[in-house]
């Protein structure tokens, strides 16, 4: 107990100076003059608006990725005291003084800087030499594209950081596994793997690729573990190993059951990521509680859960729709634009442009703006009154209703006349009696799609309903086509005769609702113009909101109009393309996303060499010829699985994607290539160079190659930092490839 009196207290610290130096250099290269340029650079214009939304707590929807990435950027803004007041509308716009540029760009830059020492660690954990590890880190350090991407408010560097963190912590965990499973550090690294994976997924869906890779590697290792006969079976005392796990005893590899191993991995790599992913959305929805410009895309129920916006209108509405209710009906599908069932005085033209005839009755359309003509009255076909009786008689599933247009008091009708743009469906109109033996067919049967039972009552906002025409069993549907000029470019509504299964374009929900009280048409019109009163408040559960938000994010398809700097995956490997990020308003100083071409080409070469060598070794091993020593082979395989595999999973899926792609999508794959490069070089030097002389020559070549990479990096530096204005002549000299788009001012 008093031992400290007998012996001196000694603190020994191992400080890996090269690691410190790498971190320092990484920080220097990424943080140097971080606030320059003090203007919106490229995609900052895109992410910036979301940062502002976070600062103002306004709800938004972005289909580019889950909210964690945006939150990381917003954290920078929060730390810098950003109030969100900046108009993100133009690349190159000068930042106003209230924008804390430094702190906004700080987090991505830190992530980029820390990737450098992490590369060092990863190669070391793969059991390659210190020299190879230094090589990997130094390559990361001088890669121009990585520098550019980290110095701005962009997400790729953060994504790369978490990708590398996942790989690193898995390797640490894997190395712990051999000597001390269920130790504290074992648990720490295992959990960190799961956390890093889910953070990567949370930043961009692209993180999924690395996650899948880690899962695959972990599954293979777990499979080996199952085959390990020294471990006890499932039958062994589970409680015993649970206790061991809690206590974290060291060196208890014997006697721990396989089941515990598998369970620990499943929890860390499957449960934790899912929980964290939900947590991101939870925080996201907690933070953003005000309504904003993206409300329209969401369902009425979701909108009503936000502060302001629709909630302000619907707050006082009665819940149950009754006969006589005045309602607006919103299409649930809402594509191409969210819209409400609408009608107006104008009629369908007698003859369409293509010569077909119409019923010449009043048009029914879908209108994407709030309007008094969107109001409809739910009428009982058996009665004449357009008011709610007291007590109100609620409308139930299966009830027959008529929908009367509020302003014109004509009722919704469909008949065997071809719709204007979709001739195979029926025309929907508001019925005008021309006395030409075309009787009104205005009875609709109400079907509540999301009913709990068949006796359900039609509820405002919550119920999703279909209107089935009684005479023809056609279903009221938004066809998605825009009417020509005679229909004011509003959307076409049709009666779908042969409804083939459930489709959201046939489903409607009540958005605004009130009980009508006025008998007279004049009074009723006044009533329609005035907002509704009475109070019922509703709140969606988190899971319902999460599911809806996630679904909309995945289903939202941005129109893939091509961007000036978009490129195809084939162009990335050889760096045939670049992106101009920013141009100084007066001088020709400019920032480009442009890689270090020496590193890109040699990375691809290393990959090819790795593939060739591996297949050669594999074939030889199959014939029982072992070229590599016993320990070198698993090392070579694991390095390949993580680095070459990381490249493959982060690159190849892009060939299947149809969205607009940019060069920066390749950066995660590139980092894995950079990790592979020193691995291959060391392998060549260790196993393929036969004599000392060859080895020395090879090392000299590697040094020469690295200095050329440094030289290229230095030459491209003005385009990376944008700090120096080059003359047109110098710029032309930098255009090494015809396809590079370097901006040269014409005077």
């Amino acid at each position: 107990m008093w031992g400290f009196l007998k012996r001196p207290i000694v603190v020994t610290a191992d400080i890996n100076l090269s690691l410190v130096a790498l971190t320092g250099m990484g920080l220097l290269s990424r943080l140097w003059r971080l606030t320059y340029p003090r203007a919106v650079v490229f995609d900052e214009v895109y992410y910036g608006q979301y940062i502002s939304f976070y600062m103002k707590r306004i709800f938004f929807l972005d289909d580019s990725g889950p909210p964690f990435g945006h939150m990381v950027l917003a954290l920078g803004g929060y730390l810098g005291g950003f109030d969100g007041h900046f108009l993100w509308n133009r690349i190159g716009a000068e930042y106003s003084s209230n924008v804390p540029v430094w702190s906004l760009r700080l987090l991505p830059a830190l992530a980029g800087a820390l990737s450098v020492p992490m590369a060092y660690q990863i190669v070391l954990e793969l059991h390659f030499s210190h020299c190879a590890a230094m090589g990997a880190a130094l390559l990361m350090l001088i890669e121009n594209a990585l520098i550019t991407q980290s110095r701005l408010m962009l997400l790729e560097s953060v994504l790369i950081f978490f990708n590398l963190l996942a790989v690193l912590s898995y390797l640490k965990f894997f190395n712990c596994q051999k000597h001390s499973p269920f130790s504290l550090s074992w648990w720490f690294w295992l959990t960190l793997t799961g956390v890093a994976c889910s953070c990567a997924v949370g930043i961009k869906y692209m993180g999924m690729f690395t996650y899948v890779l880690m899962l695959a590697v972990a599954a293979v290792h777990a499979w080996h573990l199952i085959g390990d006969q020294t471990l006890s079976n499932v039958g062994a005392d589970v409680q015993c190993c649970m206790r061991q796990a809690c206590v974290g005893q060291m060196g208890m590899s014997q006697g721990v059951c396989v089941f515990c191993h598998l369970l620990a991995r499943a929890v860390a790599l499957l449960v934790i990521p899912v929980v964290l992913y939900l947590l991101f959305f939870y925080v996201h929805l907690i933070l953003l509680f005000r309504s904003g410009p993206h409300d329209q895309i969401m369902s009425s129920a979701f909108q009503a859960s936000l502060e302001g916006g629709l909630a302000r209108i619907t707050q006082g509405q009665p819940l149950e729709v009754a006969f006589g209710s005045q309602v607006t009906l919103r299409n649930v599908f809402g594509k191409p634009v969210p819209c409400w069932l609408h009608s107006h005085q104008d009629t369908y033209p007698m003859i369409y442009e293509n010569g077909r005839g119409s019923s010449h009755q009043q048009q029914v359309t879908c209108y994407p703006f709030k309007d008094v003509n969107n109001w409809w009255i739910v009428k009982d076909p058996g009665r004449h009154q357009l008011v709610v009786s007291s007590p109100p008689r609620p409308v139930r599933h299966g009830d027959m209703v008529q929908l009367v247009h509020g302003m014109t008091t004509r009722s919704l009708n469909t008949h065997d006349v071809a719709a204007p743009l979709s001739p195979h469906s029926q025309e929907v109109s508001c019925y005008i009696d021309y006395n030409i033996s075309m009787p009104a067919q205005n009875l609709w049967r109400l079907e509540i799609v999301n009913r709990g039972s068949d006796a359900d009552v039609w509820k405002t906002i919550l119920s999703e309903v279909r209107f089935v025409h009684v005479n023809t069993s056609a279903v009221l549907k938004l066809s998605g086509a825009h009417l020509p000029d005679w229909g004011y470019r509003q959307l076409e509504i049709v009666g779908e005769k042969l409804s083939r299964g459930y489709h959201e374009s046939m489903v409607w929900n009540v958005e605004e609702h009130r009980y009508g009280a006025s008998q007279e048409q004049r009074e009723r019109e006044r009533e329609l113009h005035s907002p509704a009163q009475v109070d019922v408040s509703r709140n969606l559960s988190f899971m319902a909101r999460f599911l809806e938000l996630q679904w909309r994010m995945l289903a939202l398809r941005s129109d893939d109009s091509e961007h000036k700097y978009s490129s195809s995956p084939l162009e990335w490997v050889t760096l045939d393309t670049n992106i101009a990020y920013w141009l100084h308003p007066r001088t020709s100083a400019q920032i480009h996303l442009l890689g270090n071409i020496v590193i890109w080409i040699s990375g691809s070469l290393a990959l090819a060499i790795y593939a060739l060598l591996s297949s050669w070794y594999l074939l030889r091993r199959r014939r029982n010829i072992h070229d590599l020593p016993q320990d070198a082979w698993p090392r070579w395989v694991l390095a390949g699985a993580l680095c070459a595999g990381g490249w493959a999973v982060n690159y190849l899926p892009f060939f299947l994607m149809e969205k607009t792609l940019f060069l920066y999508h390749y950066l995660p794959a590139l980092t894995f290539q950079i990790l592979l490069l020193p691995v291959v070089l060391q392998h060549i030097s260790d196993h393929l160079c036969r004599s000392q002389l060859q080895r020395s020559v090879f090392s000299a070549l590697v040094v020469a190659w690295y200095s050329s990479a440094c030289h290229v990096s230095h030459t491209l530096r003005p385009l990376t930092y944008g700090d120096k204005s080059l003359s047109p002549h110098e710029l032309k000299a930098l255009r090494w490839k015809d396809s590079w788009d370097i901006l040269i001012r014409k005077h």
Partner: protein
Amino acid sequence: MMRMKKRKRRKRLKNPFQLEMWREAPGAPCGVAMGRSCLCTGGTATETCRLAAMTTLMLIGLAGYLSGYDGTFLFQKPGDKYEHHSYMGMRGFCAFLGSWLVPFAYLTVLDLSKSLSAALLTAALLTFDTGCLTLSQYILLDPILMFFIMAAMLSMVKYNSCANRPFSAPWWFWLSLTGVSLAGALGVKFVGLFIILQVGLNTIADLWYLFGDLSLSLVTVGKHLTARVLCLIVLPLALYTATFAVHFMVLSKSGPGDGFFSSAFQARLSGNNLHNASIPEHLAYGSVITVKNLRMAIGYLHSHRHLYPEGIGARQQQVTTYLHKDYNNLWIIKKHNTNSDPLDPSFPVEFVRHGDIIRLEHKETSRNLHSHYHEAPLTRKHYQVTGYGINGTGDSNDFWRIEVVNRKFGNRIKVLRSRIRLIHLVTGCVLGSSGKVLPKWGWEQLEVTCTPYLKETLNSIWNVEDHINPKLPNISLNVLQPSFPEILLESHMVMIRGNSGLKPKDNEFTSKPWHWPINYQGLRFSGINDTDFRVYLLGNPVVWWLNLLSIALYLLSGSIIAIAIQRGAQLPAEVAGLSQVLLRGGGQVLLGWTLHYFPFFLMGRVLYFHHYFPAMLFSSMLTGILWDTLLRLCAWGLASWPLARGIHVVGILSLLLGTAYSFYLFHPLAYGMVGPLAQDPQSPMAGLRWLDSWDF
């Protein structure tokens, strides 16, 4: 003499010749598009087949020919009566192939599991499946495709079991039969690629195993490799190309889709204006020409009286490329500085030379081909190309320098043979087509741009195709005969482009891959109303749901056994044998199901229910193997002998009888039903509409 006769006979088959098709609703996008493009309008070689329907076409054609079909029926709308046309031969042929599925599946499972009851169960599932039955009864591609897939699977399994007697006669027989079936499968539809993938994986695993067998010398392994390359790669490719060769020979007439193909391709089609064409050889000022892009399936330089919409570049006349022959493809080549009519007989003929500055005037609208510093509509990096000016008077942005690539042919520019580039004088960009489809405002024609990057790609190289100049003498061109590989490649390019063009619409209900295994919704083959004779393509729900359950059960039991083996559990001999059947045989079939099902999730095109049927065959085989093995394991687990035997027999029998009874219930779907719809209690199908989404 003989040959002549034969060709003449074949030509009787050339008439519009399409297979039966259906559509679910009038105008629903499925049927018509399907029928029209998948089936080659025989006789015209220039169909836009999205399916490589060659083999089929010929097989069915043969059947039709033998049974005396005269090829005059138009096959345009489902439900049309065949009247006096004899179609029984063709239907019989399809049904004949379709009925082979059952014995094939029986033999495959028998070989994989060595168990009669498993094979019987599989055969019963396929016999009693209403979906397979319906699909085989009509003139469709699917029975033929499934026939070849199953044939390939069967012969692959057979040759695997011959592995202990390599290079014996049966080994060679089954190996080459695999190759032949693969060629057939690919020849019918591109879905045949999946079975090729499966055979390929099997072969690689096989070779890998042989390579690791140190008792075999490298020479022997080499022999194995060569045999497989010969039978599984060379033979199918030869057959496949041979069918195409015959196809091109038989179908040598020009048709409506000619414009999809290059000038050279068209020259071999009789009836096309380029066949045995005689046109002026050298390009001269004042000639009326059409300009065709050299890249396949891009088309002709085209313009029409429509402007680019507001917000997309300058509001000037659209210039596009168009795949069909049309008056709007005609351009007049003029000198840049004079507007005088070069066809005036008083002027001498002046030839266009390499490097000349020219103007291209659109013949119908008299606007000049024009470009300027505006972004092109889709490819933002490029400049917009428009039609500009009135009656041929424009500005300096209308000037183009015409260049011959490689300048091999001297100074003058030869029609059809010279590969030319048009370089815009002011901006220095090159006229090209990006190959992207313009939205509705551009009539879904392809975008034309002017690219500032002077990369040499086929997109920016053109040739002059038609050439009309009354002042010049016509010469005959027989130089253009393309080689067979070129034709083959080109027709495939065109087919692939056509295939990827079928995109589903947003607001339409479309069949999704996840609907299929749960039998969510069928497909109307004919008839809608209660008075019609209705045929509805829907799998027998009992069979399909059993299949679905079996897949889940298989995954569960398979992984339990695999883990037990990996843990080194000592299994009794009988269990070990059964688990080998389950893992090996079942695994192979499961792989087949995976390969024939999951790729559809990645496809962006319109999908239909019947795409699932090849996968369903595999899933039924899996069900057979699984239940038999599980019941045997169960029987083994219960020690008492008489009871154990009973369990196995009773289990198999009840499954057989259950499917047979469900077939009795659902058979009207396939054989047709009349009378009220199923929701009506009077209907013969009353009470059988187990899912709301079934509409029979």
